[in-house]
């Protein structure tokens, strides 16, 4: 078995009186592509956002590369540099050009020389077909282009894992394919990816493992074949019958 990258132990998260995550144990290995599926409100996004502490767990451990980042007095910024995140609404920086969107964090936080950061950014833009947009502001980009920019922006930090929070949910249907292809390409190159998605086709084709979440716990997990062909849990069966 490959190296354990993220180990989650007994993760709980409450929003006020509402218990959203009710005890999650999970291990993500290096190079693994893990899809998280489940009905809305099941806690998928919250679980994902706990992995880089955008949501602070109420209790439990999140051990990333051997360090419990959920503990007090951890310099979370250092660890976040190694955890990329792709958002549903892209969250590109509207006041910066495409190129600046990518280079700002490496220059500020990794002290990468500007010229080097820009060279690398252009290389990455080429791969996603956005090279000619490098001096544009994001308002000139389509949704799909914005999301590809967001992916490149995350990659420029050389993360060890990328978390994708419904990356295609806010896209027009014709844009979905392009973005998924970029993610697929990353998976093929060996990037560790944890993705919350409603794209069942993608989860089936690309994932090494699928987690089915409902009511704040992982109800069932396994290979895509296990989950999609032979689901065991009645909730999984019901969910799949509704979405497929």
């Amino acid at each position: 078995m490959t190296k354990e990258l993220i180990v989650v132990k007994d993760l709980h998260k409450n929003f006020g009186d509402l218990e959203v995550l009710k005890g999650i144990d999970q291990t993500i290995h290096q190079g693994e592509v893990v899809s998280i599926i489940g009905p809305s409100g099941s806690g998928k996004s919250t679980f994902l956002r706990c992995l880089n502490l955008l949501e602070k767990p109420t209790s439990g451990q999140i051990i990333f590369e051997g360090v419990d980042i959920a503990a007090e007095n951890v310099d979370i910024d250092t660890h976040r540099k190694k955890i990329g995140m792709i958002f549903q609404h892209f969250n590109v920086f509207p006041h910066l050009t495409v190129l600046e969107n990518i280079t700002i964090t490496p220059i500020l936080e990794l002290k990468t020389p500007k010229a080097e950061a820009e060279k690398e950014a252009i290389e990455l833009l080429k791969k996603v077909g956005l090279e000619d947009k490098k001096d544009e502001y994001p308002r000139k980009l389509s949704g799909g282009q914005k999301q590809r920019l967001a992916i490149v922006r995350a990659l420029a930090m050389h993360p060890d894992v990328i978390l994708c929070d419904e990356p295609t949910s806010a896209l027009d249907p014709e844009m979905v394919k392009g973005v998924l292809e970029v993610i697929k390409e990353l998976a093929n190159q060996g990037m560790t990816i944890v993705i919350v998605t409603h794209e069942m086709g993608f989860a089936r084709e690309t994932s090494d493992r699928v987690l089915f979440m409902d009511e704040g716990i992982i109800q069932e997990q396994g290979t895509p074949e296990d989950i999609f062909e032979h689901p065991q849990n009645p909730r999984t069966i019901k969910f799949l019958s509704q979405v497929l």
Partner: protein
Amino acid sequence: MKKGFRFISAFLVSFMIMMSSIMPAFADETDTSTTGDLLDKIQERGELVVGTSPDFPPNEFIDSTKTGQAQYVGSDIELAKYIAKKMGVKLTIKASSFDTVLANLQTEEIDLAITGLAYTPARAQQMEMSIGYNMTEDTGGQAVIISKKDEEKYKKLTDLTGLKVAAQQGSIQQQYTEDQIPDAKLQSISSIDDGVALLKNGTVQAVACSEGTADEYIEKNSELAKLDELFNIDQDYAGNRVGAPLGEKRLMKEVNKILKEVNKKGLYEKWYKAAKKQSSEQFTLTATGFFGTCVQIVQYCWPQLLKGLGVTLGLAAITVIFGTIIGGLFALVKLSKNKIVQAIAGVYVELIRGTPLLLQLWLFINIFSYLTNGKMPMIVSVIIALIINSSAYVAEIIRSGIQSVDKGQREAAKSLGMSNVHMMTKIIIPQAIKNILPALGNEFVMMIKETSLASTFYIGELMTVNSVIKSATYKSIEPLVIVGLIYFIVTYSLSKLIKYMEGKLSVSD
């Protein structure tokens, strides 16, 4: 609900703490005033502070060609100089509106009030009053101004029976009006200018004022006339008085000694004549129509108007710049996680936003004056009060500007591993500026108008210039229209400019 209650109680507690730190100030003052040691204090500091309301030529008015202490001229100012000289101390004139002079006397902001003050029984209860000066027939008379068109109709005081008569609040003329015009309907005014304006527009039929003032107005306004019959002067009420804080009997004794000498030598009458000459020389309007008068005022007074506008813009700019710095700090504190400093900042902002600016000006001027023993210059107190006021509004502008930035931006920056400082300076604030800048511009425009409240304290901004021109020209509507136009042109064009820049800024969305 519970949170709201906690907030209100925090608010009240802090307000009470604030008040209790001020109250001893007033308590102290009553204590010292009963011992009457102000004379010693004056001698100790080598300075006599005299309050006056320089809108009453020729007794006290502003020579607009001069600045600083030298701009205050008139026969009362000469008297003040004389008293200071006799006491062997330096004179400082503190100019403010008439009501403010009286209030300042009670709080011992000033040592003496010399401002054409007449005796009334009510006033005698609130202050020490000197013997009379300015007692002679031709300067000490009390008259009634009426419209020229009524000249034939109204000859005697009894002809005014049951009519509306304007008189300054709490003045001797008010007393005379009540006593000598049967069933007069009294209209309180804060300055004779206001009364004349009311007379011109027909709201009142007569204005009671001193004869000297009446003569000045009639000379310069062809549509005005003087009632033939003068008020019958009660010797007890005759002449003008010098006021001192209640209980300062020793100081009053000293002043009376000097006044006796002034009366004996007929000094005041000399000063009065000279002041009258100076007042009529400084400005002569020849135009008759409304527009002609306006044009002429602008021709004569444009340097003062420009200077007043400069002070107004300067005040507004200083206020908004420092208000932004302090307001920015408060905004960051309000956005911070520390509940205690957050609560303090919240109470500060709500207190300032929930009380009128004029009240704050009064309050802070009194506090600073108490803390510095009256040494804080008025303009500095006013500026600090304005800054404190503005900072509360700016704090809200900045806070809401920062919060208006999509929270996804914060999450994206954090998820990339950006430090808090970089996130604020490179991502959040550059985007918030777009919302903050136009709002700050509007705050500046607001402040241009709000600074007019500070004219109560004669600090030379546009509205003060209005009073100066008013008292120099004996015209009340024209200066208001001119100054109003200047305010409007400046604020309107600034607002348009801000709108334009707002449009430019939003292009990057």
